[in-house]
């Protein structure tokens, strides 16, 4: 006879395992993960690998790389160890990347969710505000904010978060607009679930995957923005950030190119790791977009 439709299929492997299997398929994404792990490791071990103040004098100024085992990657014009700077810089870059991204995503989610869920005049008002932000070039706004707030690392991070929330907001809004008409939202509403729970408990988890992917892009952008600020001399001088190192290396670019090039390579690899990571996350979280 017909099989009853109540027989269960064998249980599926947990989401985490499926996620990892999908992620693993993308070789480039694995490379991204490795690079990211290296940066995290550098940030964690900075104090062990290079104890002492990275801004202190470690040897003769402008030692070329691979000449003195004390300072394996050479020193800058003030005799600071580039190797140590690289490790401590990883801390700053990651800190800024993570915190600024959290700030921008948080603002983006709130604005996008309200706007996409309620629509109507709420949407109109919030989107006009978003557009106002979008019309000002990111970097100009960032410079203005830093000029007003000052160059402390906290303010820089906050400012970067504030200039980059518009894209995630639009993205969340689009996701919400398509999800709010789905039947499961109606079903939950029909159970008497309040608007706030509908937004944050029902719809948001379903809207997250593309946002997580985009977060990796914002992280890369934040690191670049910080470097650009530091390059212009607006970074926080109390920390060895990669941008600061490039900014100061610029002065001796013709005689000691490595002062700027080494932290430059670090930035390139870190940003690359984030975009590869994002691509892998995209494959793993939105599997339907790609044929298996």
């Amino acid at each position, binding site marked *: *006879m*017909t099989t*009853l*439709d*109540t027989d*269960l*299929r064998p*249980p*599926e492997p947990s*989401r985490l395992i499926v996620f990892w299997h999908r992620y693993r398929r993308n070789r480039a994404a694995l490379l991204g993960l490795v690079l990211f792990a290296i940066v995290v490791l550098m940030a964690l071990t900075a104090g062990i690998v290079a104890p002492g103040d990275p801004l202190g004098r470690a040897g003769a100024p402008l030692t070329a790389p691979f000449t003195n085992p004390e300072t394996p990657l050479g020193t800058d014009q003030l005799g600071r160890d580039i190797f140590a700077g690289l490790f401590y810089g990883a801390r700053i870059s990651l800190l800024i990347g993570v915190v600024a991204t959290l700030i921008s995503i948080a603002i983006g989610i709130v604005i996008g969710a309200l706007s996409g869920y309620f629509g109507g005049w709420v949407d109109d008002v919030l989107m006009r505000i978003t557009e106002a932000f979008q019309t000002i070039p990111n970097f100009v706004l960032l410079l203005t904010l830093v000029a007003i707030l000052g160059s402390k690392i906290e303010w820089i991070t906050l400012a970067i978060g504030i200039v980059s929330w518009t894209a995630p907001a639009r993205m969340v809004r689009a996701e919400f607009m398509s999800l709010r008409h*789905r*039947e*499961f939202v*109606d*079903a*939950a*509403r*029909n*159970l*008497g*679930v*309040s608007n706030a*729970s509908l937004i944050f408990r*029902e719809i948001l*988890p*379903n809207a997250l995957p593309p946002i997580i992917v985009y977060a990796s892009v914002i992280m890369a952008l934040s690191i670049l923005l910080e470097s650009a600020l530091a390059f212009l001399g607006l970074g926080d001088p109390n920390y060895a950030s990669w941008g600061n190192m490039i900014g100061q290396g610029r002065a001796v670019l013709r005689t000691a190119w490595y002062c700027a090039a080494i932290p430059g390579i670090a930035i390139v690899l870190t940003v690359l790791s984030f975009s590869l990571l994002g691509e892998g996350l995209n494959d793993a979280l939105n599997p339907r977009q790609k044929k298996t």
Partner: protein
Amino acid sequence: MTVETPMTQDAKQPVLEIRNLRIALPKGADRPYALDGLDLTLNPGEIVCMVGESGSGKSLTAGAVMRLLPEPHVRVAGGDIRFMGEDILSKSEGEMRDLRGNRISMIFQEPMTALNPQKTVGWQIDEVLKLHMQGSRAERRAHALEMLNRVHIPDPASAYNAYPHQISGGQRQRVMIAMALSLSPRLVIADEPTTALDVTTQLQILKLIRELQEQEDAGILFITHDFGVVAEIADQVIVLRQGEVVEQGPAAQVLNAPQHPYTKALIASVPDLTPPTAKPVSEKPVVLSGTHLKKTFAARGGLLTGKRKAVVAVKDLSFELHQGETLGVVGESGSGKTTVSRLVTRLLEADGGEVRLAGQDLLALAPRDMRRMRKDIQMVFQDPMASLNPRKRVVDLIAQGPIVHGEDPAKARERARELLQLVELSPAAANRFPHEFSGGQRQRIGIARALAMEPKVIVADEPVSALDVSVQAQVLKLLADLRDRMHLSLLFVTHDLRVAAQLCDSIIVMQKGEIVERGPPSAIFADPQHSYTRTLLSSIPGRHWTPPVSGTDAA
């Protein structure tokens, strides 16, 4: 007319011969072969119906004949496919392109997606003609218009210049058929061509396919899941299950004297059109009533296009649902029946009228009070995939309602597990996610979620239309069972008159937002008063065929 018509072939030769066809699925699929050992002979002027439930491999057969399988993941692993005596499997891609659209053509299920929305109907027919027909532009146009005329499109010239969204669903399917037949193919593969259509349109399309096929003497491989359609159109029937042929033979024999237990079970799942004798007129109190409900959808125009015409979905609708009874709301798409279900549960705000649940007017309640009242009126949705939040475990989905209404979470989850048993699912289902279940199982979860609130009324919006027949029968039985056991009242929205006949105590027939007829199903089916009801009833596929009762089935 310069269409190449290979009419001179031997008329006795079968159009399509399939021997021992095997289609392999990729590793890790639920079975190694999507199709295992299919034999089929299709003669000119014959319609062979392949019937089976979802996943039976029927659509892949069409793909194999057209050589349009998603290779290399799914590929032909053995067997023989001969079209007019020629081996299809050994043909090159170029030779296949020559055959497709020209001598073998296909009609798809969803005419809206099969037509390019950016191009006019005429352009799309012309595209096919350009590929396979020598002739000037004017000749091609004349031929296209003639084809549109043959599929009985009211105004062929204006349809020729129309975009797909400007014509109705039935007309789109007619256009698809015109396209498929424009080059007089010897073989037409129709993959569920009427599934997306309303019954009245469906009947017209089936008649049209029959008529054109007789004129052209082509062979048609007709894929469907609906035994009513089979009864309407088939000469030969092949019943598939899980890629295996379980029964094969002339239509009359398979339909009226099925041999294999699976076929018997499938046919027994087709709801009978004769409603059970009416229960005595109910004296029970009214639980839910609607009076003078109205809803108009104001179409918001663009910035420059101005306002479009508003659509009246429901105008002045009143109904009463008695305790413990089932009220069926029946109608075709666009009749406003789904809108009714949303107005009653206030998922849509009505423009006017009252909905009284146990004496309270729901539409007048403040949002906060409405949220509290929601536990008395629950809903089972049409699409069990879309109506369950994919990121929640089943136990949380079911327990969510009671928790929102202040039940202790641990107790609510406990109760959710009991409810799973009530809807005949194993308690092991509790910790899984919705995508791990089949369609019927998901719908059971949806029912359990509605029951968790211990509602007075359940509004079911086409709860079984997304399911296979055999599953449909099981879910309907469960629903009727629970209704009787728990004294629920059911507002049942459906387009399927067979289902309505079996389940409902009284029926409302809706057309264009209005009730045209109401009464107990036995009266409506025996003696419909309104002309629309009569049309509806006479359009039910296979209405002349009464599924044999398989009560004596010893298997």
